[in-house]
């Protein structure tokens, strides 16, 4: 996420994130293109299949993909949409894992996203020990909620 760091600091925005932001749309298109048109999904599948820890594999692959997409789009994705981009990419990685019959559970996906957040904060010099303890207190059952 080097591109993000280069962006100028601005006051916290007060508006809801715009999913139609051109840079965000471009980054998402690029991610989908890499995954499926350039067959990166095959490599993702192999990594998922060889990984011992499903959560780690999901988290690392999605995080690396998000980082790469952000770099390739010169960090033009608005900061408030990076989280959404990471979630979308993680969702795609989870879809691939499900196609591989790896038995991904909602809790696995939630834990993967948690690790993405912790990794990002850790790489930016934040002591994530207390944060991780707080996160671990969340009842896993809340991730098993069905549709509205």
């Amino acid at each position, binding site marked *: 996420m080097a591109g*993000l760091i280069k962006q100028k*600091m*601005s006051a*916290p*925005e*007060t*508006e*809801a994130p715009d*999913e139609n932001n051109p840079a965000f*749309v471009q980054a*998402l*298109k690029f991610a*989908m293109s*890499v995954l*499926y048109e350039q*067959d*990166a*999904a*095959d*490599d*993702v*599948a*192999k*990594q998922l299949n060889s990984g011992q820890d499903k959560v780690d594999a999901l988290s690392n692959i999605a995080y*690396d*993909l998000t*980082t*790469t997409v952000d770099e390739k789009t010169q960090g033009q994705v608005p*900061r*408030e949409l*990076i*989280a*959404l981009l990471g*979630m*979308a990419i*993680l*969702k*795609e990685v989870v879809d*691939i894992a*499900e*196609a*591989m*019959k790896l038995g*991904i*559970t*909602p809790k*696995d*996906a939630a834990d*993967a*996203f*948690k690790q993405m*957040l912790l990794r990002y*904060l850790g790489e*930016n010099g934040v002591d994530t020990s207390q944060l991780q303890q707080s996160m671990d207190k*969340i009842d896993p059952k*809340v991730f098993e*909620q*069905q*549709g*509205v």
Partner: protein
Amino acid sequence: MSKAVSGVGNAIGGVLKGAVNLVKDVGNGIGRIVKDIGSSKIGKAVLIAAAIYFGGAALSGGFGASAGGGSFLSGMSAGVSSAATSLSSAWTSAMAGEFSQAGSTLANSWSTASNAGAMTSPGYVAALSSPSVSLTETAAAAPEAVAPEIATTSGTSSANTVTNTPLGAPPDQVSRMGANQVSSMQPAGSQYSLSGASTSGLTAPTGVYQGAGYTSGTGINGANYANSLYTPSSPGVMSSIWNSPYTAPALISGGMQVGGAYIQGQAQEKQLREQREYEARMVEEARNRYNTNVGAELWDPNAQAPIYQAQGPAFDPYAEARARAAQVYAPAQTGLAAKYMNA
């Protein structure tokens, strides 16, 4: 490029075909990413995780709705919507390195989402649709009717009044204290009261220990009497020092020094004793080595000194050798000539 993107395999395994079929039409519906993510069970889990771990909004909204009698997830949905702004702001702050600001914003998002979730609950909706209530119809009763009630109950309430029931017969152990003491432990009626009106003027019972600080006539419940029982009039020096917040540390420190000096002295004495024993042992060993290596008894135990320093005749190996050689090589002359020569 990341490891995941690099080294794309050429062949697509059959098991992956399902995944390939999931290729999204990124040109359509890009504005509904959140809805797309939440369309599946796992995607919804990711949304919930995002809301909890970073926004903290959706769950709080769900809780609010549940508390109001509504659906958890309906409230969660409202919470997500209402907290989207907070979530965005928090993420922006975190991205900018303002993690403390992000944390503060996240905390606010929890509160905001909780309120939003509660507002979707049926109970809240019913409350909004209920008819208004006239203030005049629900006005409280006149206050003057309450005041006499308080005055009446305050004198008879068992929680606030100590009854004057005399003590029963004392047990055997108490009887051994003496008649005066036992009688003093059975106060007459109305001696004890929370009001304290009848406690003045009582004297301490006969036979009960009265400390030095007791002043006669202040009453059995008086402070002087109580203090006299539990406070010694003239505590010892050590007690005074020990109870003083100023001198107690010094006492502790001094005690530590005394104890330390004692321990140190014991250690020195032991060390000296061991040193003496060691030296004595070394002398004995040196003496033994000396005697053993020489091969002869050179030590005179009577004189406590080597033989060559002793007063007695010393052993002369040369003289001994000459004597033996004379016996061997110079035997007594027994021939005719020798007989005559010795004459």
